């Protein structure tokens, strides 16, 4: 499993597709933190970062999974012994890459984007938001990868509209119908992020897990 994960990451990096996600993240961080966030708005600035990197992380996931040609996926499945291991190896590779990107984004914010260091509660909360962003990007990217949506046009539209749906639905009172990213921003802006985090985190985590379970189920008929 670890060897397969290394193989997938190695292919992603060697193919230079990694820059398709790295460069947008760096540009985004430069724009978000062009002006340091004033004292008291650390949570809002760092929550912005967590929400905005989700589509890039989804793109990264999709790109990493699509780096492997279809026939190589079959070879990997027989090499690892089961299709489940091949599937898990791909997701682990994407998770690892997304974690690096999210850590980079968070580090940029903490080191360059704030006038004052955040409190421990805020730091913990925004770290959790970045973890949830990693999972949300992983789920959205996996569900729009080539093995699920073979058409590149449909795949890209599904990724973008999926993210838009997250933003728009989570504005409404029915925010719990998706990963409530806008609710993250509202809570961070109002200073209620630490207290609202358990509820928002549980909803977000549940949707990510449901999405990954759906991906796994879909892969049963899409080897």
């Amino acid at each position, binding site marked *: 499993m670890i*060897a397969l994960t290394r193989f997938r990451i190695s292919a992603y990096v060697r193919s230079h597709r990694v820059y398709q996600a790295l460069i947008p993240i760096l540009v985004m961080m430069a724009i978000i933190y062009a002006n340091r966030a004033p004292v008291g708005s650390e949570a809002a600035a760092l929550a912005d970062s967590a929400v905005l990197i989700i589509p890039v992380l989804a793109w990264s996931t999709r790109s990493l999974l699509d780096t492997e*040609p279809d026939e190589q996926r079959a070879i990997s499945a027989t090499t690892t012994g089961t299709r489940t291991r091949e599937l898990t190896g791909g997701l682990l590779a994407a998770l690892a890459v997304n974690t690096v990107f999210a850590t980079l984004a968070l580090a940029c914010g903490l080191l360059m984007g704030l006038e004052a260091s955040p409190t421990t509660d805020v730091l913990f909360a925004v770290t959790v938001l970045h973890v949830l962003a990693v999972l949300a990007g992983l789920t959205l990217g996996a569900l729009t990868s080539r093995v699920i949506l073979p058409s590149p046009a449909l795949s890209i539209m599904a990724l973008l509209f999926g993210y838009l749906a997250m933003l728009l639905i989570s504005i409404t009172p029915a925010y719990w119908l998706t990963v409530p990213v806008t609710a993250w921003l509202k809570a961070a802006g109002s200073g209620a992020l630490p207290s609202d985090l358990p509820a928002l985190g549980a909803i977000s985590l549940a949707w990510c897990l449901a999405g990954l379970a759906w991906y796994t189920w879909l892969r049963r008929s899409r080897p």
Partner: protein
Amino acid sequence: MDLSNVSFRYRRRAPDVIRNADTVLNPGDVIELTGPNGAGKSTLLRLLAGLTHPTTGKISARPKIVGYAPDHLPTAQPFTVSAYLDHMARIRGGATWRPWADRLNLTHLVRLPLRELSKGSAHKVALIQAIMCNPGLLLLDEPFAGLDSDTREALPAIVTELASQGTIVVAGDHEAGLHTLPSLRHWTLTDGTLKEPSPLRHPAPAPTPVATAPRTTQAIPPSQPHIPTPNHERDLAPDQTPDPASHHAPGSDQEHAPGHTPDLVPDHTLGLAPGQTANLLPNHTPDSGRGQASGQAAASDPATLSAPAVGLAPPMGLAPTVDVGHPVGFERPEASGRVGGSEGGVVVEVRVPGGEVGAFLARMRAEGYEATEAAQ
């Protein structure tokens, strides 16, 4: 390894690609899987590999270690040959691939990027990643495609070696590259039905009169390298003539058993030994649309009966899956053919319905064969 009534279809309402395949594979079995393009050979290999699940039925006792070599290695990957095989070896738990690279004459190319490999070299990489782990089940999809002559000669020996260690080898192969192996099992997949023809065992009476086909064409393949002919003791001996009854000819008990649907392939199969030709012509059964055949074996020069005849099957899709030591089969009841030796190549005489003669000639010539229309 056991296949119990395995059927597979791609979509819920789609027709079955494979229907009720039921067979057993024992350690050391080497199986050559043939069939027309689109018959489902690769699908069956993927089922055997566990890459897809049967729609109905069950595949059990699959060996734990499976090697799978697809018909083409995806070379659009950012690795050199050695980096790629190193990764595959690590995933296999530390298998060694360099000795296999030596045997397949690939060592001098291991520093090249995958995308710079020729088709044959890429195929060698696919073979190496499949066999380096000493698999219990080795699945090869068109293993001889694009290989150079040295590797074509080496591969049957490698397969034999693995089989002697208990590996089950299944090769979907249009080129009959494993036909030199003495204990080869032959599967045919046609119209979703998997068949394993039994070799003929009984002496037969005089040849059965054959039906008259509308027109005759004669195709002479260009000169081809000779493929060594094996000694197949289990196949029809030169002094034997096949028994039409053993082919379930019309009128036989099995043919008319209640509820029995005649299967095209077994009815049209005939074991062919070195030095023999087959002359098969169909007797049509209009109600079922299926044909019957009778066989006639005759002596000829074994050196000229070789693989080029097989080349007729892919371009025309109608006949003959012919090779020394292998069954002769016709995939369409209206087609028939004769294989014989001649200087400089193999003469294949094929009878086709009148309306198809033009298309037949055009296709044969496009494939590089010398094809002429013969007088009736």
